[in-house]
């Protein structure tokens, strides 16, 4: 196909995850992002303590994202056949890691409130 349209990309994602799961994930991701912005504005700064824990939790998000994609696609790590496969896998892991780190930061901020100096 020569053209990639936004509608087609949405359709691919809907097919991949199922429309319900896909849009639920979009809503969850949007909500977490909104909360992240909310706590940043509320606290007026990044908390390095919370950020440290968020960073430490990144491998969990990376592994979870990879596991999720393999589970829905009838495939396994043994199917990686070339460099592009590894790059795609790393990309998925990266997205999972960053997403989970933001989630962990947000949860800490909401539970503990602003850090005191």
């Amino acid at each position, binding site marked *: 196909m020569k*053209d990639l349209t936004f509608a087609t990309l949405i359709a691919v994602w809907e097919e991949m995850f199922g429309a319900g799961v896909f849009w639920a994930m979009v809503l969850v991701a949007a909500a977490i992002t909104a909360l992240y912005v909310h706590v940043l504005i509320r606290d007026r700064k990044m908390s390095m303590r919370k950020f440290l824990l968020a960073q430490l939790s990144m491998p969990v998000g990376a592994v979870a994202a990879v596991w999720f994609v393999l589970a829905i696609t*009838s495939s396994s790590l043994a*199917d990686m056949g070339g460099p592009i496969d590894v790059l795609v896998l790393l990309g998925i892991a990266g997205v999972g890691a960053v997403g989970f780190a933001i989630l962990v930061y947000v949860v800490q901020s909401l539970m503990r409130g602003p850090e005191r100096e």
Partner: protein
Amino acid sequence: MTRVLELAASRRGFLGLAAGGAALAASGGAVQAERVRTTARIAILGAGAGGTAIANRLANRLEGATITIVDGRQQHWYQPGFTLIAAGLKSARYSISQTADWLPQGVTWVPEYAAALDPERKRITTTGGQVVDYDYLIVATGLSLDWDAIEGFSLDQVGQNGVSAHYAGPEYAELSWRALDRFTDQGGVGLFGRPATEMKCAGAPLKITFLAEDIARRKGNRERVQIVYNAQNQALFGLPIVHHKVRQLFDERGIEKRYDHVLTAIDAQRRVATYATPEGDVQTDYDFINVIPPQRAPSVIREAGLSWGDRWLDQGWIEVDRETLRHLRYPEIFGVGDILGVPKGKTAASAKWHQPVVEDHLVAEIQGREGTARFNGYTSCPMITRIGRAMLVEFDYNDNLTPSFPGIIAPLEELWISWLMKEIALKPTYNAMLRGLA
């Protein structure tokens, strides 16, 4: 088939998926061409992948045209899914939708089959006696599976006694999986192969062979099954470079191959298959057999005199210019999809690439000018080599490999990303094609 998207709908779309939003930023929506006013009567014969897609495109592009689509089939089948169903990865439902769901407003669907086509009078007569007169005709009937050509075979055998025939439809593909599941549990001799005629998705017989081997291996029963692939000539695939790669993989996986073996008969009770070979008939005992029959143009097309007179005489593909897809004797007739008498391309991927070419020439004709679009024979085959890996083979009339992502997705490498395309990206892009959006 499916020589699905293979239908290849969005190769680039999938890369976009992998690359995330970056691809989005780089591409906008498709540019909408200006609508053209006309009172032309356009008939489309067949509401499969090619017919439905061109109906949607023309409905978007033309204003005031009378567009009539003739097809008696109520169900729409996503044929690239049949291999996945036959390998137990999807259920029959995966490939079934309703014809009516895909047809646009403003197009009249005559839910009957064509009984006769008179290209001189420009008239279609349906099995119910309805008459559809046209100014322009797009032939998109697809092809007929000639099951009767396999002596002793009937579709009610599928799923029993080791008989599989996933080309017959989604339900038969599911029955075929039951036969394959039993075979890979119990062991024995499995026979695979392809007909000597042109066929849709020439990669599909190889895919189901690879999958059978992989499934037996996963079950721990590889030692108990003997898998034999019967090629109809001296090659496993039409492209020499792909033939050699498949041969190498067959050797590595212990899949036996026999050349110049064409299935002509089966004895379902005794489980014996008969093959025509240059040395005469050969009989082979089997425990499992995958039957793919000879394929021909539907009789209504052959009887209408649209076929080539000097080639494919036993098959009847229509006589079109291979680049413009326009009939060489009836310039008001075009073709899309499997029915075309061109050297390559009985896949959904090709049917997708036929669309803009036929649209361009038909609209140009209506406007009184010459069309410029050309079809280069593009065909795509995500060649599954095991569950979880495939080779994304794309090529053209000249046997050139035409990878969509040169240097990124190697065509002859078994890759996970090519499997992902086949398993998850193909169907949505196929659906987008049906709606005329891709």
